[in-house]
């Protein structure tokens, strides 16, 4: 039995019929074709499916699509601005914070959420905020450097 849900993703309203066991990550990736949200473990452990749900970062593999009914979601596709890359995306590119790139969407969204709340975080705060997002390639250092380098004035 499918259930109707209404939700806003990156500012666009969607109405959809979903199975009750459809996870939010699968709904975003396979129903809305927003494949920037990655799926690495499907168990809430790697953080690559991180999206912002009503202002909070969540593992979208641990949220059912029906639970997101009525909510507002931002995925990585919602971060790029009309002027081009978001300053945080630009910093990730320039600082070499991206290797395989599979953790990057989730990592960038988690970092952006931190900067929204804490515009000038310490290294410790950044490391804590990103500790739910696993990266096997970079050793995290260039990711931390990228987040540190963002000028809060530039954040839209």
């Amino acid at each position, binding site marked *: 039995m499918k259930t109707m849900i209404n939700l806003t993703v990156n500012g666009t309203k969607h109405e959809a019929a979903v199975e009750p066991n459809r996870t939010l990550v699968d709904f975003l990736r396979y129903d809305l074709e927003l*494949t920037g949200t*990655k799926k690495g473990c499907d168990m809430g452990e*790697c953080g690559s499916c991180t999206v912002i749900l009503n202002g909070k970062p969540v593992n979208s593999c641990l949220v059912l699509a029906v639970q997101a009914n009525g909510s507002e979601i931002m995925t990585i596709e919602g971060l790029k601005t009309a002027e081009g890359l978001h300053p945080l995306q630009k910093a990730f590119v320039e600082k070499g914070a*991206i290797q395989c790139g*599979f953790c990057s969407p989730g990592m960038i969204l988690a970092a952006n959420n931190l900067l929204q709340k804490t515009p000038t975080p310490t290294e410790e705060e950044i490391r804590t905020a990103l500790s739910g997002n*696993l990266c*096997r390639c*970079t050793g995290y*250092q*260039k990711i931390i450097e990228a987040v540190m380098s963002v000028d809060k004035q530039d954040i839209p």
Partner: protein
Amino acid sequence: MTTYSTVNSRAPRLDAPDKATGSAVYIDDIRLPGMLFGAMLHSPLAHAKILNIDTRGAKRLSGVKSVVTYEDTGLIKYGVSPARYDELLFCDGKVRYVGDEVAAVAAVDLETAVEALSLINVEYEELPAVLTMEEALAEGAPLVHDEYQRNIGAEVHHEFGDVESALAQCDLVRTDTFRSKRQDAAFIEPQGCIADYDGRGYLTLRSSTQTPHYVQRTIAMVLGLPIGKVRVVKPYVGGGFGPKAAANAMEMAACLMSMKTGKPVKMGFTREEVFLHSRARHQFVHTLTTGVKKDGTIVALKNECYLEGGAYTSFGIATIYYAGSLLGGPYRLQNMKYDGYRVYTNKPACGAQRGHGGVIARAAWEQQLDRIAEEIGMDPVELRLKNMMEAGDVSCNELKMNSLGMRECIEAVRDGSGWKEKKGRLPKGKGIGMACGFFVSGAGFPIYRSDTYHATVSIHVSEDGGTVHVYTASAEIGQGSDTAFAMIAAETIGIPLDSVMISSGDTEFGIDLGAYSSRQTLMTGHATKEAAVDVRNQILAVMARELKVDISELDIKDGLIVFKHGGVDFSRLRARYIREHRGWQGIARGNDPLTFQEAARIAYLARGTIIGRGKYKPAELGGSHKGAAVGTSPAYGCSAQVVEVSVDMETGRITVEKMTDAHDCGFAINRTSVEGQMQGSLSMGLGEALYEEVKFDEKGRILNPNLGEYKIPTSLDMPNVNPIIVESHEPYGPFGAKEVGEGAIMPTIPAILNAVYDATGIRFQELPLTPERVFMALRAKKQKP
């Protein structure tokens, strides 16, 4: 000193903007019209006879399009090394580990495919299993493969020099046994693939692989197709680190079911299946006997190694050789004996993982050298400086060092870490340790015996002359190879990086053995450079003819044609170019310098599409003994590292505080990427040293097949690294470049071990250093009078 426009810079990676915005396409992001979804049935038992497989229930389920078992395949064995092809696409007579592939289903959606798996009825007769090396080697133990007695699937025996008589002349001889645990590579993207067999009999496989070329060959062999009718395409890959470097059963099952249904078939591993497929780091047990003179000269090494391999060989033949041969460097060692045994068990097969075969050997030996340094009263840094090899040296197992910045690496970490001020002066619970590393820069030989090129590259120039397009079958898996090759092409031709487009990872683009053994930058870099030189020469030859100047008068720099002595009238060419492109933007006019773009268009008008071609294979490499093919490389990278730790003396918890790492990559094509490889390698090494172990229950089932319980370092575990790039200018590398992707992991585990000893006074001979293991050791030490 040569100055460069593009290489040796910190150019941002070409793929980074798409990866930052989520628009980069990975395998699971692809959907083809009419696509079916596949799922694999795995054995629930570690060792069992298959009595019967009944697929009727699955076939009857609505939505199921294909159900395949061994009856649908030929019984063609495959694997990695032709010497040990020991795998079948689907098990026929028996299953050999929990996870072995028994059947596969393709259906209209994944839910139906998974439901169909539950309707396949397999009758098993359980057999006694061997789950540890001790069990497997025991007299009368059950055999995983009937033809390998005592479950020894492969063994290697080498001796260089005369170890026994050399040991007899030593002032100090130490023997230590060191034991590691089975690892998982824990890349963040699970493997996936889409097979698409078309109406003409051509098969295209898109797969998250490190080695499109080997996958193409294996698929063609197993499914009985001509190589030319199998195309393997690699989209962006979310990390590999080794286990994605060979064809897997899922890829072949998807191909088989696509051939049967005529529809594209998509399959993907769950995270648990990543662990079941494994092919990651073996468990190693090394017993090392090292003899030295009083003055610290290392004289002899006896290395006995047992590797727990799991049910199949995979990369294991190479692994077993590497576990011996890589200790041939970076120290001058005249006598070395190696006895290696790879043992089959009823567990998932192990294979290659970053630092293939050498990581645990290195950890064991570098810790032993630290013990030896202490016993003879020598600083560990001095011991290494005394013994290290230099450029021009040849190891006892015939590895030739054409470049080797070992001294620079050791001195850089000594001075960069404050070693002299800290060693022996830190308070209890704090420690500092150092170690060195050594690795190949590309396997000198392909996995199958052949005179094949290791890489071929072509570069096409666009008809307007504005863009060059590099085509390579190499595998960008996150390490940054695409960017490196584009930089090499830009530098060599003499044009800006943003004029270079690159397409890679497709077997239609040439031959490339892929991303393993740290070979891409050196080997494909060479081929790229050769192709770029060809482009440049073709264009300059046309210019010389058109302008009636000698070709040696001409150069290309920063996208402009340079006339070394000036005074050349090119107005006729410019007028011609403008006629060709009336109304276009950004065209040089008047007295502007002649551009590469104009020259390339004129060359096109003279010769047709300008295509430069390049190829690479290593020159004749040394080594005449059996197995010399593993370990020989056109070049060798080396490294040194200093690690500082603090150990909680009450709980046993270790925190790595600081890491100083120096790596000789020959020449950094991209400095940021080189640092990224160093930092990433150190992070993997830290995880292996402190946390990582794949655990099994008594039935051979994995207890922690997930990233919650198989713990890899998080941003809170990994400290900042001071990465120091050493450039020894390898004569056989493109622009002098050699490896960094794997060698950088080598010193990490032993440097941590040596630092933990400095902090606690305890030598750990078993990994990982979990709080529990450290706590028990601290308690045992306290209780000892």
